[in-house]
């Protein structure tokens, strides 16, 4: 466990940094998918198999693909000559640093209160399924509705105005 954690954390963070810093937009997307994969592996170290694989399936399989599609459709792959960072980038950087400071401070404040050990939960996919159609059936249905709406909405938004009527 703890052996696996640090390389994975490094991988994830590296992926995230790459996604944010790289010049080429497509590289950013690929780095993003690396970060996603790293997160999925972190989930595995947390004994959350299902969530991990769902993460890979959804993010690496779908979201990353969507992103690269969008990049190619918007000719985003070539880097703009006018720099990749907005002209007020430092402000954003400072604010992000502030956010991290607050969050990290919060964690360190409560580090003694946090548990370091915990028994491996005996959770099977079966339990998750039962929970999904049992206690969490309403959220499930709402999410189903949301996804349908989002799909239709995305299609309509991305349609040509001319074909909008069709």
């Amino acid at each position: 466990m703890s052996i696996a954690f640090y390389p994975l954390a490094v991988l994830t963070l590296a992926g995230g940094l790459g996604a944010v810093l790289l010049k080429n937009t497509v590289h950013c997307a690929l780095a993003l998918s690396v970060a996603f994969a790293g997160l999925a592996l972190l989930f595995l170290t947390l004994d959350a198999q299902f969530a991990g694989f769902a993460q890979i399936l959804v993010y690496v399989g779908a979201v990353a693909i969507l992103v690269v599609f969008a990049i190619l459709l918007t000719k985003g792959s070539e880097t703009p000559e006018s720099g990749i960072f907005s002209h007020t980038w430092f402000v954003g950087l400072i604010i992000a640093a502030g956010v991290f400071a607050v969050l990290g401070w919060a964690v360190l404040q409560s580090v003694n209160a946090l548990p370091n050990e915990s028994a491996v939960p005996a959770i099977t996919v079966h339990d998750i399924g039962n929970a999904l159609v049992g206690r969490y059936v309403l959220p499930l249905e709402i999410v189903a509705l949301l996804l349908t709406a989002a799909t239709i909405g995305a299609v309509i938004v991305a349609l040509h105005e001319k074909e909008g009527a069709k």
Partner: protein
Amino acid sequence: MFVASPISVASAMSAANLDQIFVILKNWLVAFLPPFWQPIAGVILCVVAIVGLYPALFAIAVLMERKGLGRMQNRYGPNRVGPFGLFQPVADGIKALIKEDVVPFNADHVVHFLAPLVLVVVVFMSLAVLPMGRNMVLVDMDSGLLFFFAMGASVELSIFMAGWSSRNKYSLLGAMRAIAQMVSYELVLLLSSVVVVMISGSLSLVKIVDAQATYSGIFPHWYVFTPWGLASFVIFVIASTAETNRSPFDLPEGESEIVAGYFTEYSGFKFALFFLGEYVEMFSVAGLGTTLFLGGWSAPLSFLGVIPSWLWFFLKVELWICFFIWLRGTLPRLRQDQLMTFAWKFVLPFTLLNLFVTALWRFMGEGWARWVVCSVILAAAYVVFGRLGLARRHVGPRSYRYAE
């Protein structure tokens, strides 16, 4: 778990031992090590075995394909290297290894290099959850099916990397086609497998096989022998053909249109890797289909259980491959819009309906009634969707649509 080393099939044993021979062998080998290393060693052994076995299968398959196609096209196929050209794959392999590795000047080198690796790695990983025989699975994951599809989803990314990094319009077009097609059919593939999960109530492929490995009389309880099972089996075959970019869905590498699709710019060993990756993906998808619908390693008739289970598994997979080859030799290539229309207007609705039918089957309980009802519904749906979804629209110039 097992090791594939045919030499070690030493003395004739009873059917049971023959069935478990590789497991026994592995345990025997592992037993030499100190207990702490044993699990790791076991895993490594199995990985090595898989990584060794599937390229071999790949070689056989390629040879089979070339010769089979040759026969279908009324020619001999490879017949120079070795007896009946049996050593052709070896020759090919050597050629691929010693060939110069050409990388386009303004290609994106890193990505261009990573793409085939990612593909191969991912594809091999997806093999890890396939039970290739009784007690012969690398890791029996609780959510194995999900894992398989997660890996399958990652294939698309590698293909995109390949196509995009080559800086070549053919490659990019091929990659785009491939991704569009794979995304569409991945959905179908997943939904048609969900059906099995609904009945067997587990995502673990081992459990799914166990659920099918029982017999009433001499006949097995394979899921393909039920209305919904048959329907989703057919859908699965179609979708898997598309997923592996096989003819008639081989637009991404349609030679006559875009030279070789996303690996136009690949040569030498990387090309070989792509080739390998594709075939291994074929194997894995075929294996999944076998596991889900054809009872995995279980024998087709109860008394045939004497034949070792792994043999059955690979037999079925090979059959599947032959079917692919046959298709390739028979069917013409689809057009992109036909492909999409077929996926979204016919297969997908039908699959969704199949979900409902399965639920119906699940809740109607035992008895002949559910057979009748489900079959009727599916047949009717087939006709209806066929009429509506694929209704021929007026033929006109196709309009290509980009964002701008």
